[in-house]
């Protein structure tokens, strides 16, 4: 896999996606350029083709339902443009190392309060998933079965119980974080190095050129 820091990978992915999404309708040549870039990106990141295909298939079924009534030519451009964006973002997602949610989110250019909430949500996602696993195991051990009505009631109650159990753990985790000096920022600092900044600027320039060209052709 290409040795790139997570913030750089995220920002390059965003540049490709924004550039492709803003292309003018029926700018097929420019779309072809972006498609080539997206495929190159997927290859550089060593994405698992099977996983990528699975994700794209599900997304494209939904998009097809939305786009096909618009006529073949319009729908095909819309779908291909969306496909380029999906390949790019899913390539980033599928090569995201485990537990690096926070690092990836920290690289986003968003205001501090939103970033704090993003980081906390990322932290609590794992708590939530572990609680779900524990509750599922408990349900299996107790042999949860019965009429459909009872199961629906039990499921609704379990959703509420999941929220409360996770909240208790989240409050404990947050207390521990504050006790260890947490002040709304994760102690991970990964600013872009000069070379990486240059790479992002170059990518922006290329994307801007290709996208603006689509409006001139």
């Amino acid at each position: 896999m290409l040795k790139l820091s997570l913030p750089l990978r995220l920002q390059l992915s965003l540049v490709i996606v924004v550039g492709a999404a803003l292309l003018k309708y029926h700018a097929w040549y420019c779309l072809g350029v972006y498609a080539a870039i997206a495929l190159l990106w997927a290859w550089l990141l060593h994405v698992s083709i099977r996983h990528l295909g699975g994700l794209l298939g599900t997304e494209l079924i939904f998009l097809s339902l939305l786009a096909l009534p618009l006529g073949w030519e319009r729908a095909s451009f819309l779908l291909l443009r969306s496909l380029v964006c999906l390949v790019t973002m899913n390539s980033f997602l599928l090569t995201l190392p485990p537990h690096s949610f926070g690092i990836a989110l920290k690289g986003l250019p968003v205001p501090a309060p939103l970033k704090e909430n993003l980081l906390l949500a990322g932290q609590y996602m794992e708590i939530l998933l572990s609680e779900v696993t524990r509750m599922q195991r408990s349900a299996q051990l107790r042999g949860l079965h019965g009429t459909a009505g009872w199961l629906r009631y039990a499921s609704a109650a379990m959703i509420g119980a999941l929220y409360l159990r996770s909240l208790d753990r989240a409050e404990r985790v947050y207390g521990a974080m504050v006790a260890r000096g947490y002040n709304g920022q994760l102690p991970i600092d990964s600013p872009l190095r000069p070379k990486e900044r240059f790479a992002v600027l170059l990518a922006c320039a290329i994307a801007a050129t290709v996208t603006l060209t689509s409006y001139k052709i």
Partner: protein
Amino acid sequence: MHIPDGFVSVPVAGATGLASVAALFIAFERSQEAFGIRRAPILGLTTAFIFAAQMINFPVAGGTSGHLLGGTLAAIVLGSPWAGTLCIATVLIIQAVLFADGGITALGANIFNMAVVGVWVGWILTQTLQRLLGGFKGRLPLAAGIAAGVSVVVAAIACAIELALSGTAPVAIVLPAMTGVHILIGIGEGIITGGVLTYLATARPDLLPGEQQEFRGWSVPIVTIFLIAGVLSLFASAWPDGLEKVAEKTGFIDLAAKVRVIVPTPLADYSIKGLGPIGTSIAGLMGATVCFAVAFGIAKVVKPKNA
């Protein structure tokens, strides 16, 4: 309802992006207390919870499926629509950036539809319906359930309008399609929201808002009128009324066609051409708005001097 990349035009993406940025800016200002030691875990966990809930799709008729939007639920649990807006916006950012669910360039539109329209419609309707149902705290799950269902449909209408304005799909196709499916999804949303709040009210009542906020007296009748005109009109019978039935039976219904002066009526038969039942709903909302505006104007003009 997550609009993917490339489905909204640049002007629509820009306009909704600006609206969303403005809403988020106000939300930061208004929900400072949500970032304190006591509230931060609730906001963070509610965000994670809504994110997880949105991953679980429930089947909807016709081979489609839907998932919880959670705007109303978040606003009520957090006790503030501003914090609810932040929560849903965060979920949408995570989904767009890390899971390619909803486009980066459509993020403004998605935040506007789900984090602004969805949350605020749900919140205002919940407050109003609770008052209509007697104002008891025990009625909160029912009020929130209904409000959550309606908020999903309103958010879907906003989404359809954006797609139509972008030139992605004609309004006659996208509006009925989006609204029809989201009425069913709204029912699921309402049931889940009501169910979760019922459980929370029993297990941790301290999490739910206590005293209801004071509302000005005119909001209840206005919201009621709009609910009847906009939502219940969808279920109106298409059968002819009494006079039409008699006219059909006795054969004088064709006389209407012989009228010499034809006055153009844009919303004839309470419908908009090509929109089906959604047209009836929009016509009802427009009619209610015009009636309110005219009555308000007359009241202003003929107001007694000593009033």
